[in-house]
Structure formats: structure tokens, C-alpha cells
């Protein structure tokens, strides 16, 4: 996920996420949407799931992008410049908390950012990749 890879503007938040599963997997629609309902609720963004991206704030867009990236089967998730995507975020904790909620869906995540943001990553610094 990257600032250069936006959500699709003509789809709602939940459809942006479900598209990946519906296109790449053979899971039934009802199961996909039940899973997404639970994830949106767990991430406390259930109220925005039927909104289109232009109505979402920075944090909601970031969370939906994160969720969408997590839905891609058999892939490495790469988060490119998270502090560029959510500018008023103090440190990486909200992202870690969100990732923790999604931990059943992936095993590896790499974050890339500028060196001067390194102080905001805490103990994640060992995984920090300099840009």
C-alpha cells in the first residue's frame, strides 16, 4: 500500500476490499461479506463501509487500504511511507494495533519510510528499511 495506489473512487469502502477477494478467490460472497463486516467492526470503521473514498478521512482511507492489502492472497504486504498517508499520526502504534487485529490474515509486513521518521517506529526499528 502506497500514497500512489489509491482506493477506487467509484466503489464503496467495503467494495474496494471485497473486490480483491471476489476477483482472486473462490470464497462465497456471503462468507466474504460476513468476514468483512466483522473486520470493519473490529477496526471500528463499520460506519464508513458503505461510503465512497471521497467521503473518508485520511485515517479511514489508510485503514481501508491496509485491509485491502491484507486481502491479497499469498503476497508480501509493503507499507510505503505511512506517515505521509496519515500526516497527523504521532507514532506507528495505531498501525501496529490495526495490524494486530488482522494478524490471522498475514504473516509478514514490511514498512518503508524516510530515515527522519525512524524515531516514530519504536521497537519496529529493526524492520525499518531506509528510503
Amino acid at each position, binding site marked *: 500500500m*502506497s500514497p*500512489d*495506489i*489509491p*482506493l*477506487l*473512487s*467509484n466503489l464503496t469502502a467495503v467494495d474496494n476490499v471485497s*473486490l*480483491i477477494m*471476489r*476477483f*482472486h478467490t473462490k470464497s462465497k*460472497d456471503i462468507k466474504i461479506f460476513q468476514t468483512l463486516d466483522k473486520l470493519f467492526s473490529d477496526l471500528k470503521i463499520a460506519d464508513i463501509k458503505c461510503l465512497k473514498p471521497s467521503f473518508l478521512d485520511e485515517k479511514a482511507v489508510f485503514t481501508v487500504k491496509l485491509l*485491502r492489502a491484507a486481502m*491479497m492472497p499469498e503476497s508480501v504486504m509493503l507499507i510505503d511511507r505511512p506517515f505521509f498517508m496519515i500526516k497527523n499520526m504521532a507514532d506507528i502504534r495505531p498501525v501496529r494495533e490495526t495490524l494486530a487485529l488482522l494478524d490471522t490474515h498475514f504473516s509478514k509486513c514490511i514498512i518503508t519510510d524516510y530515515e527522519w521518521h525512524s524515531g516514530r517506529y519504536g521497537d519496529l526499528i529493526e524492520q525499518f528499511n531506509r528510503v
Partner: protein
Amino acid sequence: MRRYIESIGLKAVAKRDEIKSFFRFMTICFKGIFSGSFFNRAVFDILIIQIYFTAYELLGLFLLLSVVYGSIFIGIVLQTVKSLGLVQYLGDIIMGIVVLEMAPLVTVFLMALRSSSAVNAEIAVMKANHELDALQAFKIDPMEYLFVPRVISFMLSVTILSAIFSIVVLFSGFVFTKIIFQMSAGMYTDLIARSVSLTDLLVMFFKSLTFGFLISVIPIYHGWNTKYQVTAIPVAVLRGMMSVFMAIILVEVISLVLRLTLNYL
């Protein structure tokens, strides 16, 4: 002088490359229609939505236009036929001019105005906003997910709406022949049946499919080929729509030549 000739040469080479690129894109789209990609449920949903937008949503306005314009036009044609004493050619005139030529043309112009421009702008906006890149980043081919469903829906919509227009005009023709020539329903049906040939119907069918293909592929190509700038969107729509109108005229001319040739053989 040399620089001037070089600039003409460069322009010609650029134009040739653009035409080659368009034909390559058109070939990929054409192959995509038969690839069966719409069996994927996400793609199938797009196909249904597109048919809804291009054909179903237009249906009310289209029927109104067919009844009003078609009836008035056929009324004038029949009046002229009567005043010129060409009653024996009535069936050929209704089928040959009004049904086989006018129906696909009116349909395609209406669809180009309403839907081609929308598709052109939609794809150009998606390109400028990097949304096509987003699809590719998630291993979703825009050709498969966005372009092919639109092309198929346009081809189906133009063919179906042309058929509807023809039916409406034929019914109006029946009403007017009853009023002007006091012709019975049986006589009218017989007259139309004798005037229609399988070749004409096939030409009309393939012409409608070709129209549908071109008025979708051309705007999609121009939208897809636009730059990553919002200011490039109006230029893409303008160029796309100009090309669509030129393609419509070209197909119409080719089909007329084809019909003339087939009638002479």
C-alpha cells in the same frame, strides 16, 4: 527546408505509431471478448451494471424518441411515397431506408452522446487518479475487469436498442399505412416480409455489433492513453468523441457500399 521536412516526417511517424497502438489495443479488446473473463463474478457484476447503465437506463428516453421521431419520420416518408406515386416500393423504402439504415444510426448516435462520453471521462479520470495502477498493483488486469465488460455491454446494447427502434418504426409504419393508404395488417406484413432479405438483416446485425464495439473501444483507448494530469481529461474526451463520430461515419459508409455491392451481385 530540411528541418520542415523532418518535422513532417516526425509527425507522420508519431501518427503511424499512434494508429498501430490503437489497432493493437483494439485487437486485445476483441480477443478479450472471447476470453471468457466475464465468468469471474467481479467482472460479471461490472458487465451487468454496464448493461443497466447503457441499455436499461436509456430505455425510457429511447422508446419515447423512437415513438416520436420514428413515427413523424415514417409519416413524412409515406406521404412523400404517396405524392411521388412510388407505392409499389413502399416495403423497400420502409425496410431499406428507415429500418436497416436509420435504426442503427439513431441508436449509435444516442449511445455515443450518452454513454461513450461517460466511459471516456470515467477511464480518463481513473487513469489520472492512478486507479488503473491500483488495479494492476492488485493483479487485476484493467482490460479484463474494466474494458471488456464495457465493450460487451455496448455491443449488446446497440444491437438490442436498434432492434427495438426497428420494431417501433415498423409499428408506426403500420399505423400510417392504415391512415394514408388504407392498407390492412395482412397486406402490410406481406409487403414488409417481401422486402426484407437475410443478407440485409445480417448486415444490420453485424453493423450494430461493429458500432457497439467501436463506440466503446475508441473512448476507452483515449481515456486509457491520457496523461497522469487532471487537465489531460477534457483533451482525452474531446479526442475520443471526435474519433467516435468519425468511426460511426466510416462504418456507415462501408456498410452502404457493402449493401450496394451485395445488391448488385
